[in-house]
């Protein structure tokens, strides 16, 4: 029973994670800073899910990335691309609509 609830919850959250990540990448972030920002906003995401997700979004051209090697520790920064901005806008709208519909029903 609890296993079923767990898998249903994960399924429900899966799409929203992308939206949460996109929302935090208006400014360049590296992996760990992004993880911290999400944590501060009480979005629980496994780090083992987050980093591969960033790469997937980059591959889908929603994000651009750049290595910053000026500091003593090289860091890979991610930023929303133009296309990513557009997608984020539409996803956000979709989220508002969906949550409104659901709220009126629940």
């Amino acid at each position, binding site marked *: 029973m609890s296993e079923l609830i767990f898998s249903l919850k994960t399924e429900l959250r899966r799409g929203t994670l992308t939206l949460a990540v996109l929302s935090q990448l208006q400014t360049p972030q*590296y*992996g760990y800073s992004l993880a911290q920002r999400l944590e501060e906003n009480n979005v629980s995401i496994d*780090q083992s899910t987050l980093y591969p997700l960033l790469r997937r979004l980059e591959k889908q051209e929603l994000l651009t990335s750049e290595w910053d090697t000026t500091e003593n520790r090289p860091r890979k920064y991610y930023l929303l691309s133009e296309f990513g901005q557009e997608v984020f806008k539409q996803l956000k709208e979709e989220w508002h609509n969906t949550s409104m519909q659901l709220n009126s029903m629940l």
Partner: protein
Amino acid sequence: MNLIETYISEVTQRLPEKIRNDIAMELRSTIEDMLPDQHTDKEVEDVLMKLGDPVKLASEYNNKPRYIIGPMFYESYINVLIVAAIISVVASSLILFVNGMITFEGDKSLFTLMAFIGQLCLKMFLSSLTVLFQVFFWVTIVFIMLERSGVSKGDIYTRKKKTWSPSDLYQLKKLVPKRQIPKAEVFFSLFWTAIWAIILFNSSEMIGWYEQSGKGLEGLTLKAPLFNEEVLFSYAPFIVLLILIEVGLAIYKFFIGRWTYLLASLNLIYHFISVGLFCFMLTDETLYNKLFLEKLYITVPNVPAFWFVSTIATIVAVFSIIEIISGFNKANKSNTVMNQWMKNG
């Protein structure tokens, strides 16, 4: 420090060469970000625990399908597998059978013939197994390549299939509630074609006047073949044509699965040709072996050969007419069923 590098290599060795370095670098900087400047082994362990099983992490990075043939191709894969398996097994068995019968050179007794057929069946069974493995292997390989080539990434689905509408249902005329021609019937008719063709072409060693000159089946020997081999072989082109028509008709039946007016008409043409050829051959006196006729005359002196010929011809003609009529009958019935089904559905 060593622990971190081991963890990173555990992840990256499961990744494609191209992205290995980049991911290793990113992981290293992330792990260091997560650690305080002065850290203990315990703290490293805690951080690695947060990142979790390296195998799982690597599979997340890979993001490759974890199946050989995905849902997109699964159905067509199974269908192609079944059709290819059936066709290749039938074809290989037929070839073996024909080949075996043509090269058959035993003595003329029924006993050796039976033994030979038994052996042939075993051979056919074994070759069918081999062929099945081959078919399975190659079809699977082709589908894996289709899957891997990225054809399945949705585009075929949207490009090829137009959006569905109820009017598509009217196109599905071939889909009938129930298959009317059993597959077994088709296979039996193919088998029957092979048998009569082989017996006919080997008739000089198989059909004729047998006399008992020893014990049991082994003592049964062919004294005089029924046909004059040279004359029989002059008919070969027509007989081969008939075989082709028969096989073609059987295959057509297999795929269409039910009787239609077209099938009934083809059936009619086939029977006309076969009865015509049969009667023509039957009345050709040069076709028969004189020795056989003599032996027949000695055994049943009062019955003229003409009587045999006309009796056989009549029986064949009657059976053909029954077959033709039943074909049209079934086509008619199936048509009515179809119409009702279309109306109701």
